[in-house]
């Protein structure tokens, strides 16, 4: 059995890479399973990746077995540091991956999570001796250093590093990433398996994600909940200057108070994906009429604008099994911007060392 392990910093696009890889391998006729030793389930909610891949790969195991442990800021209250968590992970793995030829192991939000239980990236690598893929989000020159840092870390662990993908590269930096970053990385012996230009809508929560994230009520425009969000605009400006910002932000989410019907109406006349009204203030009826006509969802949340903005900082678009378009685009990015053939060949030609895995 081949274990593939995908790691990277928070928000770098690990789920995207796993999903594209899973669909690609499945299409090639491989029996693929997904396993995530350290997920992010809450008491009342299963790990979202577990749910996604369970559906995508038609797996029988319940989500809490696909992602047996969960990382959280208070995980030590949940897991006894002296407990036998490694065993739990091993058992779940054995059950979940039964009959699979390839197992994609999803990394925790960050590689150091649950290190105290021995389940950080180093622990997982020791446990499963996987072929490791790294995904990075490029922001500036320092992103190159972070990528080198990860690869050096893998080397020090004597891990089998397949290579890395530079993801969500801002369009002005694409040339620089190809012309400057790649030679440096390759010069140090690291394979660059892809340079993927930014698609902001892939990084921001969509309208439907916002409903959940903000515990919002949908007041109008239900039919537009699948709208992707490419920009977030906080509507706190005067009406006169608003239009300039609105026009510059296509497919935007507008976050503003329920008492700013004026701003919301103005936004509706430009490209807007969703309007989030904050502070629990119910808007004027004509906003809802117009939103209904335009098919733009209007969400009402009790959080104030500041809290909403803060929540959005850490939220990303969730790939959902029913999000055909999102999955489609994930695969397109993989095929167009990653060396997908080389990746498949790497996986096919890789001989896992015997006994390294359970």
């Amino acid at each position, binding site marked *: 059995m081949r274990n593939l392990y995908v790691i990277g910093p928070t928000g770098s696009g690990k789920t995207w890479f796993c999903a594209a890889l899973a669909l690609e391998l499945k299409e090639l006729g491989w029996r693929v399973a997904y396993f995530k030793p350290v997920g992010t389930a809450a008491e009342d909610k299963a790990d979202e990746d577990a749910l996604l891949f369970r559906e995508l790969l038609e797996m029988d195991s319940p989500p809490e077995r696909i992602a047996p442990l969960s990382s959280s800021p208070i995980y030590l209250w949940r897991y006894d540091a002296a407990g036998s968590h490694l065993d739990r992970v091993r058992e779940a793995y054995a059950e979940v991956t039964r009959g699979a030829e390839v197992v994609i192991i999803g990394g925790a939000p960050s590689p150091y999570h649950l290190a105290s239980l021995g389940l950080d990236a180093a622990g997982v690598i020791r446990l499963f001796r996987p072929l490791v893929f790294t995904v990075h989000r490029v922001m500036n020159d320092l992103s190159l250093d972070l990528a080198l840092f990860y690869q050096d870390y893998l080397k020090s662990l004597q891990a089998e590093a397949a290579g890395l993908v530079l993801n969500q590269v801002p369009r002005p930096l694409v040339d620089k990433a190809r012309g400057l970053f790649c030679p440096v990385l390759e010069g140090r012996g690291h394979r660059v398996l892809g340079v993927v230009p930014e698609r902001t809508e892939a990084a921001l929560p969509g309208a439907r994600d916002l409903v959940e994230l903000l515990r919002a009520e949908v007041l109008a425009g239900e039919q537009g909940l699948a709208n992707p969000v490419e920009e977030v605009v906080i509507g706190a400006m005067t*009406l006169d*200057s608003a239009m*300039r910002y609105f*026009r510059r932000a296509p497919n935007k989410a507008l976050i503003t108070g329920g008492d700013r019907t004026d701003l919301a109406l*103005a936004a509706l*006349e*430009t490209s807007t994906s969703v309007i989030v009204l904050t502070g629990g203030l119910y808007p004027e009826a004509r906003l*809802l009429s*117009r939103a209904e006509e335009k098919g733009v969802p209007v969400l009402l949340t009790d959080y104030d604008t500041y809290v909403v903005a803060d929540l959005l900082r850490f939220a990303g678009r969730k790939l959902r099994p029913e999000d055909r378009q999102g999955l489609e685009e994930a695969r397109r990015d993989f095929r167009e911007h990653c060396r997908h053939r080389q990746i498949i060949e790497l996986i096919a030609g890789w001989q896992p060392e015997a006994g390294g895995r359970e």
Partner: protein
Amino acid sequence: MVGASNNPAKLGHAVVRNLVEGGYPGEVYPVNPKAGEILGRRACPSVEEVPGEVDLAVVVIPAAGVLEVARRCGEKGVRFLVVISAGFREIGGEGARREKELVDICRRYGMGLVGPNCLGVIDTYTPLNATFAPRMPRRGRIAFFSQSGALGTAILDWSLTVDLGFSRFVSLGNKAGLDEVDLMQESLADPRTQIVLCYLENVQDGGRFLSVSAEVTRRKPVLVIKSGVSEAGARAASSHTGALAGSDVAYDTAFAQAGLFRVRTLEQLFDFALAFSSQPLPRGNRLAVVTNAGGPGILASDAAEAEGLALARLRRQTITELGQGLPREASLYNPVDVLGDASPERYTWALDRVAADPKVDMVLILLAPQAGSRPEETAQLIVEWRRQHQDKPLAAVFMGGASVEGAVERLKKADIPCYFSPERAVASLAALARYAARCRRAMRAPSPCPPLSGREKARMAAVLDRVRADRRVVLLASEALAVLESGGIPCAPSRLAAGPEDAVRAAEELGFPVVLKVASPHITHKTDVGGVRVGLESPDEVRRAYLEIMENVHRYLPRAEVYGVEVQRLMPPGTELVVGFSRDLQFGPLLMFGLGGVYVNLLRDVSFRLTRGFGPAEAEEMIRETKAYTLLRGYRGEPPRDVAAVVETLCRVARLAEEFPEVVEMDINPLVAYERGLAALDAKMTIGDGGAGA
């Protein structure tokens, strides 16, 4: 009358009462499944059971039942439907869906629809009062269409106290079917309507509104009261370069261009209506004033200047004649002062002389009651004189209260508008003059801008395509300049550089000295983030400036996407102008011209035009409206600038706006005008989805 009621507290009762008591000569059928008889008329249980053909159905039932009634009316072949009921678009999503269905039903059966959520319709000549307004207005020459029912009734009620009459009144409500444009158009054919008055909160189809109202105002004046509050979205849409265009400027510009009169207060509405409904149009804007006191005469002169009227310079013959007939102390020059002791005969004699002067286009008579004044007799003589002399507009101000009451009454009866103060009289005459000028202008053959060539357009489109391919909506300055350059607007030579060495190469190509400006769609104010370096003379300076700019920008705006730096040849100084446009949701591209540079938002020396019907003549007018024009002509020893080149640039920008609907806003600032030619130094451009507004 569907929803008729016996209960006097209900609207369904008030409407039947108004129909019956308003003297409607046709048959009125109350429809109510329960009531047997309403105001002496037997109620029909349903629309189907109304005998014969139905011209008009008025619906006052709860919203939930309206669609069913509309369907039945359609089946019955009813021609027009007035839906007074509320509970539609104005209540939100569910109401909006209901309204859409109502419109569909009316369309299917070919029924004209007024409302919903309105007050009804009135025709004072039929007479038909299908409203629940408490009283019927007087007959008159004004057709009044109001988007606010409450304001409509308030105006109608007030009109009874000031002697203002109406030909018809329509409460537009949600304007789901017929709107002000349909009604304006229809008023053209109505001989009883001389003036159209609209109270508007928004305009739905700006293009249609403009073309129809431009047509209507050639023949009948249209007064508009427009409140901005309720169409916040549309208002904001015309904002321009940091709100240069203010929130209402698109409406102001559109109204002015279509020849509509924007009225700010009810007082003004009354004043203008009075002048428009009784006076002929003046040939020019020269005003003569005949007064019996100096003070009011000066007030009138000041007002004339403020309103853009000229005080007529009387011809020599008139002055000589006045000198022969008036006392020695009298002032013979305009304003002509006939003195405090003027008799009615002296007044009319002077009036006769002044009005006969071919250099006078309109006359204002002022009277302040003094010891020897006989206001009522003066009024009587003026009325008699007026019967013989009707070619020029005439207005009167009899100042004071009790002592002039009778005189004012006489003047009013004879259709001589009489105002309380010189300012209001002058403003009303000025409105007549403006309208007359507008009618003359409408006769003038339009001079459209020359079209862009196919090659120019293709090159401009190519730049825009590249921006879209990069998934952006905001152009870099270098791209915006490339679009302009392709469209035949001279630009300062410049190019985008993606690294310090590239910048040096660019500078060497373009020639030193150069300017470096950060290139990022996220940065609007480049100077504020340390993103501009000017006057760089050598490769070394360019290299250093590049890194400085990059570091500054990353420090101040760490999340901005930076595409590099734009290298531009340093241009010589000239007059800095701003030219741009913003696409208004209702009226399309709104062109702006003014004094440019960094103080543009402070000085706000700008003028606006819609690009619809725009040509070189309009461009010139636009330039002349600004102080920048004084600078362009050469101020304090500066050489005059190439105004013809500015006109051409305005025309080209207008064409760009018309032919590239995907460009939603654009500013060239500064556009530097020289003695010969000009150059665009910096430009901002945003593209949208190509729709009308976005």
